[in-house]
């Protein structure tokens, strides 16, 4: 479908005024894409239409709902982080309590041992002091013998 150059020039006037339809613009596009010997003053239009054609070729990888998934993942990550923080904090807390408990337990043990030693000591002392009553007997016997 070769268009006469005059018809093309008419269409280009309308085109510049924004008055062409999509179909008329297709006609212009076809003319400039299919012809190689374009009048010099129309070459800029050829560059334009070829450029428009090329610009539409750039494609796009389809959108695939990646974002909501990654959002969920970060959500999971935050949950995990929160759990970890609670665990670490409570382990510190429990550990300090356990240390406290251990110290008390040790103190109790030492106290018990000390008490046992002291008990034993006092028992031995009592035993020893009960033996002292014989000192009185010695005194009595001595008096009796001297008189």
């Amino acid at each position, binding site marked *: 479908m070769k268009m006469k150059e005059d018809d093309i020039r008419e269409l280009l006037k309308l*085109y*510049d*005024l*924004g*008055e062409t339809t*999509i179909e008329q*613009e297709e006609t212009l596009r076809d003319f400039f894409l299919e012809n190689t010997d374009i009048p010099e003053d129309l070459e*800029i*239009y*050829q*560059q*334009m239409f*070829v*450029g*428009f*054609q*090329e*610009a*539409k070729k*750039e*494609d*796009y990888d*389809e*959108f*695939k*709902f*990646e*974002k*909501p998934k990654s959002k969920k993942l970060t959500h999971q990550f935050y949950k995990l982080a929160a759990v970890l923080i609670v665990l670490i904090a409570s382990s510190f807390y429990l550990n300090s309590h356990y240390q406290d408990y251990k110290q008390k337990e040790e103190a109790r043990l030492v106290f018990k041992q000390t008490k046992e030693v002291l008990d034993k000591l006092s028992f031995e002392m009592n035993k020893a002091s009960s033996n002292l009553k014989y000192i009185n007997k010695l005194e009595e016997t001595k008096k009796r013998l001297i008189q």
Partner: protein
Amino acid sequence: MLVMILKSAATMNESQFLNHFKNAQPKMYRLAKRLLKSDDLAQDAVQEVMLKLWMKKDQLSGINNSEAYAMTMIKNYAYDILKSKRHNHLELVQERVSDSEENAEEKLEKKQSLALLEKALDQMSYKDKTIIQLREIERFEFDQIAEILEMTPVNVRVSLSRARKKLHEKMKIILAQ
């Protein structure tokens, strides 16, 4: 037909939802990339808008053109970024321009035309870029563009006419350099 699609949109599952926006996604991506000039930013923009659409999927049945609706959302998303990062954006423009300048000579005729077009577009306002992208590259009808840009169809024609003339002039100037 449209009514049927929209009725089913009320109870869409993930794969139906993705299928529903299958054709819109490359268009969203290209508009975001045209405006933001960064592959990463454009991909993020599509992700964000798709998630917003997914969240609103029950309301989509009340919208009669979900593709235009998605394009409006991506346009607004990109405009917000451009408004908040004006300086950053300008730096990227510089980068991109010198890049395409370097490669233009080595590339084939088609790539040269694309490079020329992109270089000219880079020098235009983001509103001009958007309207060129929607009409010339994505080939939307005037009433759809009107919906996306929240303008009247008459204003779309006027803005498009201005943008085409500017683009034409910029391309000529670049070629003459």
